[in-house]
């Protein structure tokens, strides 16, 4: 017992106190609970003593003054007592109304008693009846009431009218304001979206992306001007805006970056001008556009210019095997032989000359919108990088630079990790890589599609993955025979399309790397298809109960194929009488031979050596099947028919 320390338990009554208020810090201020007498007083206070004695009230009010006087004169000593009572027993106060009423009643009674006693003596006072002609003055107050009511109503009506007038005025004013917007309110709205500063008596704004991390040297300022050239007498046009912006002349109009891939090089003479002003301008509304749209367009022009400037700078700096060409507003690069990627800046201002050229005949659009979008993304990323390198807050002792770079020291990054941090590929390199990938992907798709449409047996299925990286995508290619999808599943290829090459992953894990040339892929797929046929025969033999005597994917005998190797298989019927030999090459096609038992060959010359009849069970020579005359819709079906024809009848 003594070892255990006593546990303190504090008992507290449930909170009966009323909460007066709860402070902001959560403390509660309680009301002190009422004492018994206070409680009684509180209850008594609720009783309305004046109720039910309404008729006496008027008289009581009149007598009250007297009563108080009387009380003051009559009980001066009492008052002291009472004051004492008030001090120490405030609970007496609630009975005050009762006391007052009683006292006034007493006073009245006293007065009445005095009057009556004096009247009874008939010495000083007599009672006389009052004359009854008090009717006309009784009507008077009614008319007076009517007049006063009328007057007050009229006053009220006037106030209401005034208010209504004011309201209508303000409504019309509002409408006017809507038409004729206030310059200052417009300026306020402008200020919410754009950076403005005051220089001298001008208001200048900033269009550039410098605050977002851009390093483009264009100043990108615009000027805010007050639009005053409007005739106030005439009707104000609806889109009138008192605020206008003046944009630098080189940022006017609209611009976009155009990325396209062309198969062959155009004439040198066309360079730089072909792609100008191709897109028809969106029809501008009559009148000047709103400042917001104007500024947004100008900012877009600025960004496009920045992208193009960055690209052309890189194009000149980067050494590549085939140098990038920068001509006028176009950058031309050759990602693959006979293929050119052109990135051009199309900037059309609103003047008449450009409008005229815009109406020229248009060639079919060959935009690569994905790349155009990616260019914008890349430049933003670039901006973000420059912004984050000077990001605050920053440890005072750490070197300036990217956060990962800052951690490289304390986390002991080795050379490779530091190199990976510093790898800064340019915009152009990235976009060329993306373009290469996009081109390779579309070319692969085209190759597979053309093969699939050209060759019906076997069939090619391509399943493209929906989600791709910008530099890599994959497709799954299945080669099947119609009607035999379940048994012939031997060829499943996974094609990983990269930037310059295609990696083919075979079902058994073999990896083959193909270059960007489409012929390689085509040849590969053709050889796979020819192998598929032989695989299919093998599978079919299993199902039909035939025995596989020999199987080879790459036969070393026979005519040499220009693509890949021929494959061959020999299967024997369940009882061993017949054998079918199939040789299938990607180029030479299929050749099917059937071997008969010796006794079924009539044209076989009688041999002197094999006299005994048992030798008749030896297999005889091969005979070629005229495959194109066989019935059946495809190779495997024909083979199935052939096999079943050669199988012994089970009945």
């Amino acid at each position, binding site marked *: 017992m003594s070892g255990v320390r006593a546990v303190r338990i504090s008992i507290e009554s449930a909170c009966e106190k009323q909460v007066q208020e709860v402070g902001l810090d959560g403390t509660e201020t309680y009301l002190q609970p009422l004492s018994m007498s206070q409680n009684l007083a509180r209850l008594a206070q609720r009783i309305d003593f004046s109720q039910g004695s309404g008729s006496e009230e008027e008289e009581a009010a009149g007598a009250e003054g007297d009563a108080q006087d009387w009380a003051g004169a009559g009980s001066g000593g009492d008052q002291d007592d009472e004051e004492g009572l008030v001090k120490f027993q405030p609970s007496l106060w609630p009975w005050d109304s009762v006391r007052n009423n009683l006292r006034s009643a007493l006073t009245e009674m006293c007065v009445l008693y005095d009057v009556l006693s004096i009247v009874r003596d008939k010495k000083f006072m007599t009672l006389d009846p009052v004359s009854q002609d008090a009717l006309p003055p009784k009507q008077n107050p009614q008319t007076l009431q009517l007049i006063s009511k009328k007057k007050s109503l009229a006053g009220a009506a006037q106030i209401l009218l005034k208010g209504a007038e004011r309201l209508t005025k303000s409504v019309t004013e509002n409408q006017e304001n809507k038409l004729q917007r206030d310059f200052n309110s417009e300026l306020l709205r402008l200020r919410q979206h754009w950076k403005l500063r005051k220089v001298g008596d001008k208001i200048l704004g900033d269009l550039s992306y410098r605050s977002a991390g851009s390093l483009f040297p264009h100043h990108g300022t615009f000027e805010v001007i007050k639009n005053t050239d409007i005739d106030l007498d005439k009707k104000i046009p609806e889109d009138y805006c008192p605020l206008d912006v003046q944009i630098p002349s080189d940022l006017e109009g609209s611009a976009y970056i155009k990325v396209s891939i062309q198969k062959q090089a155009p004439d040198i003479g066309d360079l730089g001008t072909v792609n100008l002003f191709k897109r028809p301008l969106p029809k501008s509304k009559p009148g000047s556009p709103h400042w917001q749209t104007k500024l947004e367009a100008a900012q877009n022009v600025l960004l496009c210019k920045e992208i193009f400037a960055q690209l052309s700078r890189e194009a000149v700096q980067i050494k590549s095997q085939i140098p990038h060409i920068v001509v006028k507003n176009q950058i031309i690069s050759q990602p693959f032989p006979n293929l050119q990627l052109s990135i051009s800046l199309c900037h059309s201002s609103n003047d008449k000359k450009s409008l005229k050229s815009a109406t020229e005949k248009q060639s079919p659009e060959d935009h690569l919108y994905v790349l155009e979008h990616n260019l914008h993304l890349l430049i933003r990323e670039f901006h973000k990088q420059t912004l984050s390198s000077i990001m605050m807050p920053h440890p005072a002792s*750490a*070197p300036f630079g990217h956060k990962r770079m800052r951690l*490289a*020291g*304390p986390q*002991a*990054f*080795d050379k490779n990790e*530091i190199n990976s941090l510093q790898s800064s590929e340019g915009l152009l390199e990235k976009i060329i890589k993306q373009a290469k990938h996009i081109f390779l992907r579309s070319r692969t798709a085209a190759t597979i599609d053309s093969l699939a449409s050209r060759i019906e047996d076997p069939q090619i299925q391509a399943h493209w993955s929906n989600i791709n990286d910008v530099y890599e995508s994959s497709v799954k290619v299945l080669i099947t025979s119609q009607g035999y999808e379940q048994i012939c599943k031997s060829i499943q290829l996974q094609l990983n399309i990269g930037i310059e090459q295609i990696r083919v992953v075979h079902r058994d894990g073999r990896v083959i790397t193909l270059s960007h040339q489409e012929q390689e892929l085509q040849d590969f797929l053709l050889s796979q298809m020819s192998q598929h046929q032989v695989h299919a025969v093998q599978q079919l033999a299993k199902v039909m109960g035939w025995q596989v005597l020999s199987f080879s994917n790459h036969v070393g005998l026979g005519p040499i194929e220009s693509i890949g190797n021929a494959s061959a298989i020999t299967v024997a019927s369940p009882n061993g009488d017949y054998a079918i030999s199939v040789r299938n090459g990607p180029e030479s096609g299929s050749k099917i031979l059937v071997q008969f038992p010796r006794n079924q060959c009539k044209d076989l010359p009688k041999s002197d050596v094999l006299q005994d009849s048992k030798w008749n069970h030896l297999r005889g020579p091969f005979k070629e099947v005229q495959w194109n005359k066989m019935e059946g819709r495809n190779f495997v079906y024909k083979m199935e028919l052939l096999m079943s024809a050669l199988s012994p009848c089970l009945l």
Partner: protein
Amino acid sequence: MGVTCVSQMPVAEGKSVQQTVELLTRKLEMLGAEKQGTFCVDCETYHTAASTLGSQGQPGKLMYVMHNSEYPLSCFALFENGPCLIADTNFDVLMVKLKGFFQSAKASKIETRGTRYQYCDFLVKVGTVTMGPSARGISVEVEYGPCVVASDCWSLLLEFLQNFLGTHTPGAPTVFGNRHDAVYGPADTMVQYMELFNKIRKQQQVPVAGIR
């Protein structure tokens, strides 16, 4: 980042340090290792200043400030058997400010320099340990890149070392035993270098005493 083993290669009999190093590098080149520039690890000793020592007369701890060219942005500060601090290279400047607490031991700078070889997954660095103007010994560092748990790849490392160093193959470094199954880090490499330098320092003191 892999597991590293640092060891000392004794100088072959009848040959100079330089010749032994050449012998080793030639062996590596014969194996087919690729030369990848040079490397350098240096170490400077600081002892706690007298003013800050306790009155009990306890000996001042030694602190080693090391750099490794493999981690070019880092600076390592180690106590013997103590913690290892990894900082960025500004730490050197900080040490100058801390003169009152840590004083640089005179002529204590010891370093190893040599060539860096890449052989498949192994990174081999053969260096000459120098203290002042004279060469004191040979350091051999072998790093196996794909693994970060020392106990998992020690036998592989050992096999490679046996192949390469022959009879002079070292035992498992003590840092491997300290943290079983733990992830190997750059600090562990530096601890090994520190131990190697200390060993070489003691070795060279003996002959000097003998001469006297």
